[in-house]
């Protein structure tokens, strides 16, 4: 293995971009669990649906307005909006009925959603992998070539993280959501319409996942089955970071993303094993995660 600076840089950048994707998907997962105590198994499958939707919208726009990479932006915005709406509807129609149920039944419902959505993808888009090719020239850094799009991804990830932090800590609705993480009953006793908050949080979680799916299309092909790999890594992220903590999720995403990128270099088949090893160590040391509170555990 050549241990030169350039290849380390490339791995670091790909690890960071991967960390951004993990963060965007798992912050929704973490918030949904934190606020509603629902573990959404279908989160990554919804992410996958968003990816396909963005792909189709992009193809549609390029067919109308001509070939331009910038058309990806309206496609991502539209797809994110559509998935936000889908998340809202899902919460109102299905998830809402599960709050009073046992955990396994909730998991089973989201498991059923995985089957339904992934088979719908097969029905609509077929089984081929999809990706978008953007005409971007790689730039040279330290004797190696880097796709500058990676910096766009890292910027989007950090931007969303900052925005989410601002929303949760500086706005009225964000404060309500954080209060709901600690005590739902108290929040609703204060006269706040908790059911709207629930729907909003679910839709927000699905929306951020949808955004990441669109942003990642140009560097990563999507296909059936990758949602399961993703959801398991997201579970690892959320458990390491602590449920309901955005900062924890961000730090855990960075750890998992970067470690994954480097362990692929050293031991290709064992990358996931190393992540699970970290997970095991963290859970034994702090079962409620790095930034979680002991109370919720």
């Amino acid at each position: 293995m050549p241990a030169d600076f350039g290849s380390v840089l490339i791995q670091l950048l790909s690890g960071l971009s991967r960390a951004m994707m993990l963060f965007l998907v798992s912050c929704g997962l973490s918030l949904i669990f934190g606020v509603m105590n629902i573990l959404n198994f279908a989160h990554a499958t919804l992410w996958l649906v968003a990816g396909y939707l963005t792909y189709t919208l992009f193809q549609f726009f390029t067919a109308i307005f001509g070939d331009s990479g910038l058309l990806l932006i309206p496609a991502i915005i539209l797809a994110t909006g559509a998935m936000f709406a889908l998340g809202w509807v899902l919460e109102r129609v299905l998830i809402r009925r599960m709050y009073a149920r046992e955990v396994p039944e909730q998991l089973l419902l989201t498991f059923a959603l995985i089957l339904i959505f992934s088979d719908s993808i097969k029905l609509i888009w077929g089984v081929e992998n999809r990706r978008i090719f953007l005409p971007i020239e790689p730039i040279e850094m330290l004797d190696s070539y880097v796709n500058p799009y990676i910096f766009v991804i890292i910027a989007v990830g950090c931007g969303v993280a900052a925005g989410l932090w601002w929303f949760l800590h500086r706005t009225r609705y964000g404060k309500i959501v954080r209060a709901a993480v600690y005590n739902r009953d108290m929040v609703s006793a204060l006269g706040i319409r908790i059911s709207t908050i629930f729907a909003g949080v679910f839709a927000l979680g699905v929306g951020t996942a949808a955004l990441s799916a669109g942003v990642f299309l140009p560097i990563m092909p999507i296909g059936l089955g990758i949602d399961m790999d993703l959801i398991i890594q997201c579970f690892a992220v959320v458990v390491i970071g602590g449920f309901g903590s955005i900062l924890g999720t961000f730090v855990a995403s960075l750890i998992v993303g970067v470690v994954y990128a480097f362990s692929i270099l050293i031991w290709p088949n064992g990358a996931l094993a190393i992540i699970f090893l970290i997970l095991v160590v963290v859970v034994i040391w702090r079962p409620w995660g790095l930034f979680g509170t002991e109370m919720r555990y």
Partner: protein
Amino acid sequence: MTSSFNKNKYKGLITDLYHRVGLSGPVAVVLGLCFLLLPLLPGEFPVIVGVEILILGLFAMSFNLIYGYMGQISFGHAAYFGLGAYGTALLFRAFQGGTGEIGYFDFFLSLLVAIPVSAVGALLVGFFCVRLTGVYFAIFSLAFGELIFYVVFSWYSFTGGDNGVQGLLPPPFFQNTVNYYYFTLTIVAVAIALLWRITRSPFGYTLRMLRDNQQRASFLGINVRMCMLMNFVIAGSFAGVAGALWGPFQRSVSPGLLGWVESGLPVFMTLIGGAGFFAGPMVGSVVYTILSSYVTMFTVYWPLTIGFIILILVLFVPGGLLFLIDSRIVNLRNRRQSDKDLGSVSYGGQGENQ
């Protein structure tokens, strides 16, 4: 048991069984008769489906030991099913050598090896899992299950990677589907009898206590983690037995047996049949396997179909099919009872394992 229990009301074998052991008794009798007579149906297909029902049913029942009795959900249970299948398959290949044939003794030996293999796997995973409960237990078992899947999937030199192990032709007597069916039926029946014994033992009642109140159990001096670990290993071993039967039946094993899709099967079956009942997972296996065998004849979009079926079941039939039947019976009896003596209190609870 309901408080309307009355010895004079015994009418026949089925009612008697219902009074003694709950709904699982009559269900076991009916299912047992059906299984015994199944090969009378024309054609080979029903028998093949029957073997599948039995193996997956045992798999689901072993899962319910963790879910229904201990109150934790294992989302990586297929790992032990798969480990058992691989243990059997690899020893099977070793015994076959180059000839492609295997003696009866070697065949039984290779089936038996599944038990220690999956027990050791369950012990290693369980050691970490039992430190946690609830959602964390589910995530941990899923993560470890996937870990074992990746190990089997990528260890080409030993497990054959994604090719799996092929050519597991059982000895001549068991090559006949009907013979293999009755062989499976015997082993599954013995395993179920053992499971029944376990759930009725003090250990089984300790598990129910762990489900209902762990803190209280530990106050009473029960070593909670040890009990959970023991149960995890027992459940894993029974899943291994089911896995062992799978390889010679399908003539091959593949890493998919350890994957998350396979782990979903016992969960579906248990919830379809009813987790609160000993026979629930087997009923679920009957419903699920028959549906999947016959629906796949009509549509390739089977996951979509089963997805909607599960959605409807979760939303409208909580507690499973057996709970639906049982609550009807309890209602009926309450009505009869209240005709005779008004004001008597009787109840039927979902949480009770019968």
